[in-house]
């Protein structure tokens, strides 16, 4: 079985982002970037499946600018066998990403495609479901447990009411939740080894996919600031404030 894992390069989750002064977007210059956190879970799961002898190859793919190569390289350092970078010049929408990934799936013919359930930059939560639709494959979103069966997967999904279990036929798309596993750190020897693993570079424009935006970003603004609160000295004072000042209890 072959597993394709999609990874995205995003602003690191610990960075407090800043809105550009002209409201045209977010400041990304000189900001720490890293792999979208649930994409780390997706890679980890694929590598674990391979280590358990249930997959023959794990391929990491990223759609992004040249520097997204670092994100692919990191996936190789934790156990992916080879990488693909589909280069695009500007930020593209999840619909376009899913069309590009469809092309890669048609070429590589994986049995499973894994990715994070949501990217923490645009918070869209769309790409996996869109790819599933375009391929007419089943989708198991927000996965916190994956059990491999003969020709299917049994997937436990985190939903609002608790947990839901579904069975999807292979080939399938799985979008991974943060609780699926504990992503490993790359060891130094594995980081060195990853430098020798191949990364194929493809230009999105060569894939014949329309990546033009359908959505215009008119402006980006800071959220309204909360007015500063106060520290209370005791539990008694807290209860009194909640009762008489805020009037919420």
């Amino acid at each position: 079985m072959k597993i394709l894992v999609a990874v995205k390069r995003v602003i690191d989750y610990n960075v407090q982002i800043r809105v550009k002064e002209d409201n045209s977007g977010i400041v990304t210059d000189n900001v720490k970037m890293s792999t979208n956190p649930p994409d780390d879970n997706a890679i980890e799961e694929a590598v674990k499946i391979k280590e358990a002898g249930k997959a023959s190859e794990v391929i990491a793919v990223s759609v992004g600018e040249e520097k997204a190569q670092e994100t692919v390289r990191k996936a190789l350092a934790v156990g992916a066998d080879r990488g693909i970078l589909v280069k695009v010049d500007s930020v593209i929408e999840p619909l376009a990403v899913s069309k590009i990934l469809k092309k890669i799936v048609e070429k590589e013919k994986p049995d499973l495609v894994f990715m994070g359930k949501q990217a923490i930059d645009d918070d869209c939560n769309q790409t996996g479901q869109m790819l599933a639709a375009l391929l007419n494959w089943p989708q198991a979103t927000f996965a916190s447990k994956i059990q491999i069966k003969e020709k299917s997967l049994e997937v436990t999904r985190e939903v609002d009411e608790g947990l839901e279990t579904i069975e999807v036929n292979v080939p399938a798309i799985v979008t991974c939740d943060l609780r699926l596993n504990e992503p490993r750190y790359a060891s130094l020897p594995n980081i060195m080894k990853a430098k020798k693993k191949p990364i194929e570079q493809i230009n999105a424009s060569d894939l014949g996919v329309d990546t033009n935006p359908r959505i215009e970003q008119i402006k980006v603004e800071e959220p309204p600031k909360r007015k500063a609160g106060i520290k209370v000295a005791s539990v008694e004072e807290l209860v009194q404030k909640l009762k008489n000042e805020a009037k919420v209890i």
Partner: protein
Amino acid sequence: MSVLLIAEHNNKEVKPFTLNAISAASQIDEDVHVLVIGSNSESVAKSISLVPNVKKIIHVNNSIYENYLAENYTSVIFKLSESYSHIVCSANTFGKNLMPRVAALLDVSQVSDITKVISEDTFQRPIYAGNAFATVKSNDKIKCVTIRPTSFDPAPTSGGSAEIQNSDAGEASEISKFIKKEEIKSDRPELGTARVVVSGGRGMQSGENFKLITAVADKLNAAIGASRAAVDAGYITNDHQVGQTGKVVVPDLYIAVGISGAIQHLAGMKESKVIVAINKDGEAPIFSVADYGLEADLFEALPKFLEELNKLNTIQK
């Protein structure tokens, strides 16, 4: 222009967030139609027909829809889509799972998780865990939009009398199958709609210690929330998680106990009307959003808090 809204329900009752989504839908256009896909789901269609903002119900009733699967829903929505300018649903795990599958088949770029309707094609939505808000305009012919339920008031549930029109089922999906749902039943208010939420974080140190949270929540008729750290540590189940990848809550009162306040957690609660933080680390970021901060050991503060609440003659429920 007409809006097709996909209802979330359990075949008996409509889920509350569908009502919030109906409010948002009627800000887009007055002609709101609600699609109910279910099995033996007459009572759902009937109850939505009473919502005054709704002009028509399309009811697809077939045993293949006993359990919700995005694959099954999508073919029904796709068939109906050409009569509509907008297809919308709530941006919870139901809608997040469903809408992109619909949008991709229609070759539409979806607008996710909107918090404001500016015009029929322009919306505001949070990005970067709510640390910025983007105003976006969709240029697609059909607009696929998911709605952050807590940003819109629920629509009223009586006074309307919309027509219920039955429609044919689509093909049953062979590629995916529902197995089971482990729903955590509770008498408490739902986390997403509760007036008061009491949340615990890593500082709780164990699942057992969450009983301190439970006792306060009982007293305030509150829902119980948690940070991702507390869920990851196994102190409490995932349905309690508040934050960027969990639930977004906007209660009148949010009490964060032993939660440091990572930006991912703040994303899920910082719109709350009044925020209380109890934490022994005075430098914790949670204090930056708290209206009332108490720097204290939670294991002393929570029992004391309950004791003080017990002294009050009346407590709002």
